[in-house]
């Protein structure tokens, strides 16, 4: 099914076209049309995978152990669709914010290359290809961070570059290690061969390495310091894209690797993951409260929200994974819309420093309503979309008896509300005659329109929370019972006359349940 390759191919072609064309209105039209088409393709992929289960494509018609496969299961398609929606919103916002003459001509090509990397990392079914996708994504993000930067910004961007370069190196080492253990890098095949190897210290080391790498990418507790200072230097639309999607790739990969690839009974590591999530959310929200400019607050909130999702992954039950997926849907939209609100605030007040902004409620009540909806949704007030995700996480935590972590999560919610109210009070509610509101700059109308559209989208997530939670449950089911995923990939191998591992004919329970190490033929002599 070539549809799986389309989310990668379309942004690639768009980027090439954008590099060849002059930065004018025509190019903008083409880019927007392409982005809209990407959203349509991604939604088609979601519908298709929801109905038929995972779709796999062997690139270049090479069978899995040698060729690379692209696999779209429900989780990947949901992530691709979210990336498409957020990139469309961010590009439209960028177009309304700056005229063609002032926009950096490389911004659009780089954003599209970034989308290539994003979609590839969501769709790939191969560990090394995941590394390549990460590199594509990271190199574009380095360039985008420093595209319109001055000296100060470059100083802030440096930790981002340094830590991610080190992370990539460890990732590459981990990939080599995985190949050494399993003799394959295909997710489905690793998943088969690793089942029952959870006692093997090498698998544990691999899991810890991968946890470290993806923890860096997601901004997890000990190694999160690169994030909150580097994101505020981005211009608003890029911050929305980065904040909405880029760190979530780390969460997605944690879900994929711990859910689909590695053995499911690494319970010690799952506990570590949950605690790391808990600490991250607490420190993130404390950082957010301490900041006094909108982008800074929101950048710290990225960490805190990542903490929630990782906490849910750490609980590691089908219900908690479904919660993480739903929370992801909600959070990507809300977070990027909040960055867009922050951009509109800084356009109207000329700054997003909370001390020097005021009067916005009187000037633009609509923006205020949008901000309230988004901010309260982020804090998790019922009945907004954030509430349902948090409710599911808390329910599962209580069921598993993790009372301390649940307390931390609820505590974090209160502080989230506090920091959102900080923005609300300073920018919207305060009246200060000395602060000008640049209402004559007509660009704010378009920007508010984009922001409100995104806010409406999150309201739609609230209204259709039922079907979306069902979708998340289906996606989590797919992750947990790897049967359909593995079958989709190995079908490609069987079609080309390849020798399929014995486990494909074994009933699913035998694959996923912890089995005696001796029955696993992939275990070397030492471990037997």
């Amino acid at each position, binding site marked *: 099914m*070539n549809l799986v390759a389309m989310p990668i191919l379309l942004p690639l072609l768009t980027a090439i076209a954008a590099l060849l064309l002059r930065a004018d209105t025509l190019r903008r039209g083409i880019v927007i049309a392409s982005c809209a088409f990407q959203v349509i393709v991604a939604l088609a992929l979601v519908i298709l995978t929801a109905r038929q289960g995972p779709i796999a494509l062997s690139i270049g*018609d090479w069978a899995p152990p040698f060729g690379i496969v692209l696999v779209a299961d429900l989780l990947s398609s949901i992530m691709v669709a979210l990336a498409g929606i957020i990139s469309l919103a961010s590009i439209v916002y960028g177009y309304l914010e700056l005229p063609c003459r002032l926009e950096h001509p*490389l911004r659009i090509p780089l954003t599209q290359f970034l989308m290539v990397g994003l979609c590839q990392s969501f769709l790939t079914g191969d560990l090394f290809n995941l590394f390549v996708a990460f590199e594509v994504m990271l190199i574009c993000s380095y360039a985008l961070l420093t595209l319109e930067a001055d000296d100060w910004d470059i100083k802030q961007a440096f930790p981002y570059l340094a830590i991610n370069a080190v992370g990539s190196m460890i990732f590459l080492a981990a990939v080599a290690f995985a190949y050494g253990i399993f003799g394959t890098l295909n997710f489905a095949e690793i998943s088969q061969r690793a089942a029952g190897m959870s006692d093997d210290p090498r698998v544990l080391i691999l899991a810890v390495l991968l946890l470290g790498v993806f923890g860096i990418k997601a901004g997890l507790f000990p190694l999160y310091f690169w994030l909150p*200072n580097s994101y505020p230097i981005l211009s608003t639309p890029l911050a929305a894209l980065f904040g909405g999607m880029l760190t979530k790739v780390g969460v997605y990969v944690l879900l994929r690797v711990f859910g689909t690839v590695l053995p499911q009974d690494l319970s010690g590591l799952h506990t570590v993951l949950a605690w790391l999530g808990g600490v991250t959310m607490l420190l993130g929200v404390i950082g957010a409260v301490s900041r006094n*400019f909108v982008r800074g607050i929101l950048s710290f909130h990225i960490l805190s929200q990542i903490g929630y999702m990782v906490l849910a992954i750490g609980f590691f039950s089908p219900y908690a994974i479904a919660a993480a997926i739903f929370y992801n849907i909600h959070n990507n939209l809300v977070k990027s819309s909040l960055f867009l609100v922050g951009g509109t605030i800084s356009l109207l007040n000329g700054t*997003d420093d909370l001390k020097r902004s005021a009067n916005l409620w009187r000037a633009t009540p609509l923006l205020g309503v949008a901000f309230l909806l988004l901010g309260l949704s982020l804090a998790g007030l019922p009945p907004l979309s954030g509430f349902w995700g948090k409710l599911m996480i808390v329910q599962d935590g209580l069921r598993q008896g993790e009372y301390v972590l649940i307390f931390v999560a609820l505590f974090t919610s209160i502080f989230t509300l506090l920091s959102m109210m900080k923005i609300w009070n300073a920018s919207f509610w305060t009246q200060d005659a000395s602060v000008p509101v640049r209402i004559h700059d007509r660009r704010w109308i378009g920007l508010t329109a984009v922001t409100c559209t995104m806010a409406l989208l999150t309201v739609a997530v609230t209204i259709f929370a039922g079907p979306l939670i069902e979708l998340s449950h289906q996606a989590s089911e797919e992750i947990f019972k790897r049967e359909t995923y593995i079958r989709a990939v190995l079908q490609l191998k069987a079609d080309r006359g390849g020798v399929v591992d014995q486990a494909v004919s074994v009933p699913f329970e035998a694959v996923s349940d912890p089995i005696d190490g001796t029955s696993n033929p992939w275990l070397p002599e030492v471990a037997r």
Partner: protein
Amino acid sequence: MNLARSFIFTRVAIFLFFVINLFSIYLLLRGHNHPGGGFIGGLGSGMSLVLLSLAVGVEQMQKVLRVDPVRLATLGLLVATLSSALPMLWGDPFLTQYNIKIGGVGLGTPLIFDIGVYLVVIGITVRLIVILARPVEGLCSLTPIERTRYASEIEKPIDQPIEQKIETNWGGQG
């Protein structure tokens, strides 16, 4: 700035420029079944251009190359992408390759893909070196035409006074 160059070095480098390029095309063509291919061939050809820029100066080298290196890389990317996307038209998987034999010489679509890679690598190598080498020779790092294509007129879209930037720092005043 007028760098004094050794006459011997300049002559030898100009001669080697052709030899290296010939060898890089040989590497490109043998890449299908032997060590070589578009990437390594492109690196060779890019290096020959770098050598030329040392011998005759960056500006002169850019006159020899004639095209904007980023355009060259983009063209290569386009060739590679189209050659890999083409099989999708008749329903074969993305990146499927076709090989035929004409009179004992194997030809195939991987060669088109490889030529694309070759161009990308030349473009990027030259771009990286030129942007560093031009300031060394006292030139602006972007040519005027590149400035219209790859540079922006403004530094920052959002007005951000310096005091606030200090607050962004970890050790700054809270």
